């Protein structure tokens, strides 16, 4: 028994040595993969990544390790992956706003289009426009009309400039002509607290965190992103005339450009298998997240559109 396992270990060690000697024949992945998250601990990316990395090893045959590298609004971690070897052992777990929007706001030390290829969009989260349960705004149209009539009077709490709540708010303002007073908070949690305590009249939030607040009547949802209804009695952006990829946070795994095709294939296959994984699905659904996979090439089309749309948006705000 022990002898057997010893033989196996020696055998594995030999294989490993040979593999190192002949990288051309080595099969990826032969060592753990690092997943860099350019945000802080405890955020939604961190929690999503913990679910991914605790379930993907079965399909990948290797461990995946989370490394949090927050700083400069996500640029620090992103730059680290951009300059890492394109061998598939260092990947980035980001979202569309850091990925495609920042390039239009400031000069980045990397070029997101040229330096990265998307591997998989793991899931996405649609935004919801939220007011307090006792708010005077009965509907989304009501809110928009009021914001048009009193430009800059209605406080909208968001989670930081150019972040996941700010951008949808700015896009809604641009599409409808409404003018909100945008007040930043350090994260979605504090923004929601500001809404509940009366420091803001409107905020945005993801359905994954809204459930108990809606059920208890503390907040009401006026509209949700996308063309399909999430709540039976709440209209969508599509129904109110806001169309396109507005109000979706896509959580996406990216690799440095130049990563070998067979490596990308293996990663895509692993993420595809992961979507079918029962415990992955169970954990994600408990978190209130979907498991709607988009593979690299399909997501790249979305990326191109995002980049164009964000450029127009940024230009309209900053000029």
């Amino acid at each position, binding site marked *: 028994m022990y002898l057997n396992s010893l033989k196996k270990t020696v055998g594995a060690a030999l294989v490993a040595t040979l593999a190192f000697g002949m990288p051309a024949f080595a099969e990826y992945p032969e060592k753990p993969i690092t997943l860099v998250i350019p945000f802080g601990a405890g955020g939604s990316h961190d929690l999503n990544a913990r679910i991914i990395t605790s379930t993907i090893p079965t399909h990948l045959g290797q461990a995946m390790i989370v490394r949090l590298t927050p700083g400069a609004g996500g640029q620090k971690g992103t730059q680290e992956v951009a300059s890492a070897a394109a061998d598939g052992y260092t990947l980035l777990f980001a979202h569309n706003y850091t990925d495609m929007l920042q390039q239009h706001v400031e000069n980045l030390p990397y070029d997101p289009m040229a330096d990265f290829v998307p591997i998989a969009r793991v899931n996405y989260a649609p935004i919801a426009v939220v007011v307090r349960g006792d708010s005077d705004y009965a509907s989304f149209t009501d809110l928009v009309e009021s914001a048009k009539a009193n430009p800059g009077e209605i406080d909208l709490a968001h989670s930081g400039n150019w972040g996941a709540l700010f951008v949808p708010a700015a896009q809604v303002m641009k599409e409808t002509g409404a003018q909100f007073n945008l007040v930043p908070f350090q994260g979605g949690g504090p923004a929601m607290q500001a809404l509940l305590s009366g420091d803001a009249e409107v905020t945005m939030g993801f359905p994954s965190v809204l459930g*108990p607040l809606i059920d208890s009547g*503390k907040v009401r949802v006026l509209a949700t992103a996308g063309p399909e209804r999430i709540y039976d009695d709440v209209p969508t952006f599509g129904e109110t005339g806001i169309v396109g990829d507005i109000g979706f946070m896509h959580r996406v795994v990216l690799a440095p450009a130049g990563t070998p095709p067979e490596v990308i294939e293996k990663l895509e296959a692993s993420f595809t298998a992961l979507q079918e994984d029962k415990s992955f699905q169970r954990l994600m659904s408990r978190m209130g997240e979907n498991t709607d996979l988009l593979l690299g090439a399909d997501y790249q089309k979305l990326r191109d559109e995002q980049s164009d749309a964000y450029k127009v948006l940024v230009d309209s705000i900053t000029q």
Partner: protein
Amino acid sequence: MIEQFAEGALMAFRFDTLMMIAIGLFSGMLVGALPGFTTLMAMAILLPLSFFLDPLVGIPFLLGVYKGGIFGGSIPAILVSMPGTGAAVATSIDGYKLTQKGESRKALDMALFSSVIGDTFSDVFTILMIFPIALLVMQFGPPELFAVLLMSLVIIVATSGSNPLKGLVMMLFGLWLAQIGTDPIGGVERFTFGIFELKSGIPLLPMLIGVFALPELVYAVMRNERASGFAKLVGERLTKAEFKRCIPTIRRSTLIGTAIGIVPGLGQVVAAMMGYSAAKNASSNPETFGDGEVEGVAAAEAANNAVNGPTLVPLLTLGIPGDNVTAILLGAFVAQGLRPGPQLFEEQGTIVFAILVAMVLANLMFIVIGYLSIPFFARIVTIKTGLLVPIVIMFAFAGAYVFRSDTTDVLMLVGFGLFGLLARAAKFDVMPMVMGFILGGPLEYAFGQTVAMAGNNPLGFVLTERFGMVAVLIATPIIGFLLWRRMKTATT
């Protein structure tokens, strides 16, 4: 409700629950003691483990890691003057002095007892008063946070020592350092000179290790004590009399910490400093503070641990995580199918009470685990200087690097080390600088939010809608002046 509570309390007494709490406490303490590794990281890494455990095992386990980690942070702060977090800075002031006097065991004992008492009280208070606290939390917005932060800074300077002017200079320098990097609201780069590494600002950990630990290492080498390390002895354990003497301080700090925990966004750093300043100010011999006063350790530790209870309130009553630790706990709750929110207690009351009771049990267990571990930790300082100094240097550099995996941080560490030496030579206390740096970011952010909320009419907004802010702002100079005068008469 009471039935649920009784049922839940009984559920918490499970062997596997208690076992995992113990494991969590011990591993949290070890991780917390390593500079560069934060409790937050440990919790994030261990979170997936809780996904696959019973809720009454997984969540208490994470809470154990959290509580163990906070105490763990005070171990290097006391033994080698290396606070790994802002919350441990106040502990290191007197804690390290006690180590140098050969009384490290006493300092660690005091830290343990006062943190457990502060934590237990605030947990019990939170469990009993959870709904009133939830209402109170709602009274604080960015304007009030700004005013309270400003008042904290004034109190820190006023009680900083014999020369408040020097303290003020250092604090302003710290506030300036906090400005470096990308402006958190407008996104404008400030004082970065186009250097990308400076864009995310100056990291806290290299500053802490640099200004507090590196100068001590240099001094230890200069003293050239061949026979022993930082201290010859580990000393006696804490005596009953000493503990009794500190009870009023622990009580005061616990109240301060709990109150600060209710204000969203203030946190452990402010609590520890306010607890420490208050104890120093109330003492009849304030000059002993900073010179190895065991009361100073008690004041800081009781206060920073008492923050923990109330910070859970927004999470439990609204499902809103106020900081990253509670965000991880939220993840652990929802992965177990528990949805924190207004109906949590109605729908899942029993199990939530069980978790809260387990949290209190964790504190009690920690007294035993901590008390038994302290002699081993305390011994570290008696290692020969020739061995201890290189080991501590290694941990200092590794800790500064590992936090963000960035080599720039190692340069920062050396820079702050040199600065610490210079400041000491010129008899400037670095503490107000560090506090200015830590609180500068939140202060500026809260100010920016207040301005944003005010829209076009800041003055009208503040005067008509924010009476609390105005009251605190008016009280601040008065309190600052009174504290300064009292310190002056007490020390001369």
